[in-house]
């Protein structure tokens, strides 16, 4: 479905990807890990249009994503969260879903189970980090994405929170949504993902 074909990307003189290819199928659960600077976040930025590759192709089905702006790609259903939480500090969490009100009401159960319900009337600065990360994941899920990239969603979680969160992802990420989890630690990927890939500098993706 989402396909990166022989993508090359370098920053200045530093090659991050020499010739990266991967194919994401409907409903895939992919874990992606790698050391610092191997291009984990770059891969997400490329797939969501925030960066352009120097060479290669990126396609969703038959559509090329190269000429599209990030917001157009988001509307095609490729959603992401950010490594550093991006929520507006002047809005309470309830106002930050950015989906029609009906969608929120229909998914009350999911919101409840995620554990953020008690925080909905608070500003981001009044919530602990795990809540904010879950909030971002929830926001993406409510938009019914076809592909969901999560950039280090469990950073800052305790072990208990991590278990709970993996349970949540297993139960609430729809079957036809492809999920890509990018992490340093492997606990979350081991629980949620069926395919685990490793990124190594200038090498093709490798199963681990």
């Amino acid at each position, binding site marked *: 479905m989402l396909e990166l074909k022989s993508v090359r990307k370098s920053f200045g003189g530093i090659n991050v990807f020499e010739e990266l290819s991967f194919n994401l199928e409907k409903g895939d659960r992919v874990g992606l890990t790698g050391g610092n600077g191997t291009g984990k976040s770059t891969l997400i930025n490329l797939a969501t249009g925030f960066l352009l590759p120097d060479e290669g192709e990126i396609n969703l089905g038959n559509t090329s994503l190269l000429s599209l*702006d*990030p*917001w157009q790609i988001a509307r095609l259903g490729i959603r992401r969260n950010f490594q550093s939480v991006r929520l*507006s500090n*002047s809005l309470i969490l309830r106002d930050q879903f*950015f989906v029609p009100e009906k969608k929120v009401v229909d998914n009350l159960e999911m919101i409840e189970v995620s554990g953020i319900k008690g925080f909905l009337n608070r500003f981001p600065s009044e919530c602990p980090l795990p809540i904010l990360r879950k909030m971002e994941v929830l926001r993406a899920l409510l938009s019914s994405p076809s592909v969901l990239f999560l950039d280090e969603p469990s950073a800052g979680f305790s072990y208990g929170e991590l278990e709970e969160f993996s349970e949540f992802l297993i139960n609430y990420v729809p079957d036809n949504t492809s999920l890509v989890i990018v992490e340093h630690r492997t606990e979350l990927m081991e629980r949620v993902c069926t395919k685990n890939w490793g990124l190594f500098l200038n090498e093709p993706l490798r199963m681990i």
Partner: protein
Amino acid sequence: MSLYLITVLTNVCLFSFIALSAYLILIVGEVSFGQQAFFGVGAYSLAIFYVYFDFSVVFSILFGMTICFFLALLLSLITIKLSGLYFAMATLAFAEIFRLSMNLIRFPIEKEDRATGLNGPEGFENIRWIFENNIDPLGFFYITLIILSILVIFLFVLERSFVMKNARIVGKDLILAQSLGISPRPYRVFFIGAAGAISGLGGGLFALANTYIEPAMFGMMLGVHSLAYTIIGGLGLPIGPLLGVLIDIGILESIRFLSEYRMIIFGGLVAIILIFYPEGIISPRIASRLKRLFFKKGL
């Protein structure tokens, strides 16, 4: 009400329009130092349509607003790649081009034995609508107040819609907005356009109230003030900028023994207010709190 008070309140209403136009642009995350130009274009368009072409005053104002809207739209399209400081510079340059051109354009005429028409730095005299229609200052104050109220109510309604919500995210965090599927460009372009029209509306009313306009009235200080009003009033709700105008024109300019020191006191006041309310008196956060209080939604 004394005539003096009426004049002060009318001025508060008139400058609220330009403050609201600065507010709209700040919401989409840009800073314009050029809103005084649209105020001026509105004033001059009204004067030209009303005096030279004998249009009715309503049409003159509407035409003025339309011209301002398209001019602002054009400006925002030309500057589409600019942001921050560079956008501010471009708007300032535009405003100065307008002001200096008005200094050069002369096309005086006589109407009913009175000198009027475009006359460079000497200004445009005898826009006599309020005399011809016997509108007393109180009546004119009510007219501006009603128009301003309609505008503010409209902005409040807009505040509850997705348009304002998306625009605020575009202004606050462009990357987040894009990742949510919000296209930033239409918001930026149309908010700048609407701001131009609102400023032009205020300018038109200003020309009617004053009966006389000159290019020097639309100098940079007017634009700087409109920004200052919004910044101290806050970006949370449309009444924020009005609060800023009220503090400056309503209190400082109108207390006579203070008016000499107005700039000094106003500058100090801005600094003090921003120390205690870094996001303005009615900050977006306070606006969120108020919304939470008044509109309890589901969940």
